[in-house]
């Protein structure tokens, strides 16, 4: 019997309708409740669970106490196995994390969770890539690609996965913006990591529909092109992301998925370097920088790779920046330019130009970069 895990973040989405742009943190939650915010996530979870009714009696639903899943499951007439307990009056991030870990331990085939970007981050911090999950969008902020485009589609996709009709798995980005910044009008989404989700084109958010297999081969083709043209004269800084990871894999080198690595003569100089380490290593050396846009919005610099500071970019020089991206990733930008936000106006200005972007083996495109 297949096991489905269910976690509901009961407070997700409460800030939205009262204009608070999110509910990360207890003060904001209290404010939201005072402003008359109503919980959204129960209804949205029920909407998704309805799609799973054909499997009632054929799957085991494991969920958390009370409003963290039990309530929604019961109202759909599922008879869930309820685990865990909530300690405080309201739920917090640590409840979500603990619940996710317990789901992992109980060996669920799929973990369905309702929430927003903050919830996705909590799930990611708890289970990483050790299980398959899927988000029911219920939060105010949905920048992460781990969510289906609406609750009904989340339910449909979960059904397909549990029936083994959707077999492919996609590494989807967990993104979040700083809510404090967002309230002040600055929108900065950052890549936090990748969760494994079931893949079926029609159910996922529009921008994330590259099939896992075709993406993998595109990344390998890019890695071929890059490694074939590597020169021993240069140091190569390798930025974060799954596309650059394929290059490291091709060279049989350890990769830091979310960090910066440095190689020379196809050998590793260092993993996960910060700005200071980088500048020290490349001082006086000819250097190229291999970078890929991360996290769906097309940011090259300034989102989760601040180690690549204006000083590093200046040392490398504009002509030695090698941008790589799969065609699917470029196409998902729907014509929007690639973006830079280095924190230094002059550097941003310098990068404001058309760049050659390597998209495959002996294939490139010309694409606009703007700040």
């Amino acid at each position, binding site marked *: 019997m297949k096991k489905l895990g269910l976690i509901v973040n009961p407070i997700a989405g409460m800030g939205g309708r009262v204009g608070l742009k999110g509910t990360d943190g207890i003060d904001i939650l209290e404010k939201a409740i005072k402003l008359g915010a109503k919980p959204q996530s129960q209804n949205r979870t029920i909407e998704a669970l309805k799609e799973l009714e054909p499997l009632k009696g054929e799957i085991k639903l494991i969920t958390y106490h009370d409003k963290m899943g039990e309530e929604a499951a019961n109202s759909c007439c599922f008879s869930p196995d309820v685990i865990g307990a909530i300690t405080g009056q309201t739920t917090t991030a640590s409840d979500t994390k603990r619940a996710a870990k317990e789901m992992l331990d109980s060996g669920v085939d799929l973990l369905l969770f309702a929430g927003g970007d903050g919830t996705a981050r909590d799930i990611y911090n708890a289970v990483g890539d050790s299980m398959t999950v899927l988000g029911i969008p219920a939060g105010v902020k949905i920048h992460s690609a781990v969510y289906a*485009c609406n609750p009904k589609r989340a339910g449909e996709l979960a059904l397909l996965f549990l029936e083994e009709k959707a077999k492919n798995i996609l590494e989807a980005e967990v993104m979040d913006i700083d809510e404090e910044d967002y309230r002040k009008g600055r929108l900065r989404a950052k890549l936090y990591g990748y969760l494994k989700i079931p893949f079926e084109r029609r159910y996922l958010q529009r921008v994330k529909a590259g099939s896992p*297999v075709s993406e993998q*081969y595109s990344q390998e083709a890019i890695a071929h092109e890059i490694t074939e043209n590597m020169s021993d004269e240069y140091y190569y800084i390798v930025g974060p992301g799954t596309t650059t990871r394929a290059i490291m894999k091709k060279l049989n080198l350890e990769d830091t998925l979310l960090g910066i690595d440095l190689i020379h003569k196809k050998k590793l100089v260092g993993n996960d370097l910060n700005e200071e380490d980088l500048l020290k290593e490349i001082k006086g050396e000819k250097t190229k920088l291999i970078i890929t846009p991360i996290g769906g919005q097309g940011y090259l610099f300034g989102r989760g790779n601040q180690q690549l500071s204006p000083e590093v970019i200046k040392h490398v020089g504009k002509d030695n920046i090698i941008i790589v991206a799969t065609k699917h990733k470029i*196409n998902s930008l729907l*014509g929007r330019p690639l973006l830079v936000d280095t924190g230094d106006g002059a550097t941003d200005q310098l990068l404001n130009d058309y760049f050659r972007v390597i998209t495959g083996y*002996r*294939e*490139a495109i*010309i*694409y606009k970069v703007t700040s």
Partner: protein
Amino acid sequence: MKYSPKINEVLARSPKVAEVHPLQDVDTAQGALEIMYKLDTFLQEISGMKKFTMQPGGGSSAILAMASIIYAYHESRGEADKRDEIITTIFSHPSDAAAAAVKGYKVITLYQDEDGLPDVEALKKAVSERTAGLLITNPEDTGIFNPKIAEFVDVVHEAGGLCGYDQANANGILGITRANEAGFDLCFFNLHKTFSSPHGCGGPATGALGVTEELITYLPVPIVEFGGDRYYLSYNLLNTIGKVRAFYGVFPAVLRAYSWIMSLGAEGLKEAASVAVLNNNYILEKIKKIRGASAPYAKGRHRIEQVRYSWETLKEETGITTEDVTYRMADFGFHLWSSHHPFIVPEPFTIEPTESYSKDEIDEYLAGLEKIVGEAYEDPDRVKNAPYNSVVHKIDHSTLDDPEKWAITWRAYLKKHKKK
């Protein structure tokens, strides 16, 4: 799809055509050679090029021949090794990139700007001493005509490259614009797309390829020449790329195109183009009013011969995709074309009526789309589970994503799987 006059089939089946043998003495095949020669002169007039070959077996074959001529041209100037890049655009036909890659070129693709047009500033960044040439469609697959096309050609010429015009589909521009006036060095027409020879679904076809005076010497051999009293085959081209197909081309396709042009005349060709554009823009206006459908780019402007539309809103609101609509259309006996690559426009669908359909027929087709959209909002499963009335139902395309699971030839299969 274009109407192929039935009388042309009668002509093509006549023993005078069907029994012509490629190895018979040219003195006994003067009529066939005359038709090939005259079609060449018609296409010269339509494009402004100076000589055509009928040898390529279709559009992609003609593009490959263009890439071969571009290569031979640079080779004769000692630059073939240095000039290893071909530039194209994202909304040009994908074969422009594919055939160039087959020839061994690196492919540089320009993306669209906000208006859906390729960006001339990006082109300036793309050209260099490594540029071999430009292969471009215009109007592109969006149906938008690139008004800066002459500037594109100039930029590539200045960098030392040649420019090839993919005019496989010239339905909207016959008698209106010519490759020559935009400065192109090469162009080709698909006789089955523009000149009413039947499509044949990958069957025998012709990509008639024309070049400027300077490039005639590179054409495939033989070419058909006229000596004043007799037609003959000439193999006397100094830099010829050799043969690109057995013998002289697909003669029945050549004959049908010749017949179609002769029956319409210059005025008729121009009228065919005008009606094709009119039909297309009628459909555009109607589709813009269908719930869930949209026509990205070129807001408020007319299109040429086709439009790439989007079902993005339909998908967001109902979960119904382009693929679902395509299958459901089959239930009503309609064909919704299924090749919209690359998928830049979300949930794309492309419609090109050509000049052949009456208003009643177009309205019937639109009613099919409207009916399906109604179903999508009322009962999406009805659409999702289509088709109901066809023998072959759904095909799983996912294996095409995985190169391990396909090979285009037996030899490629053996190579891929390292079998001797």
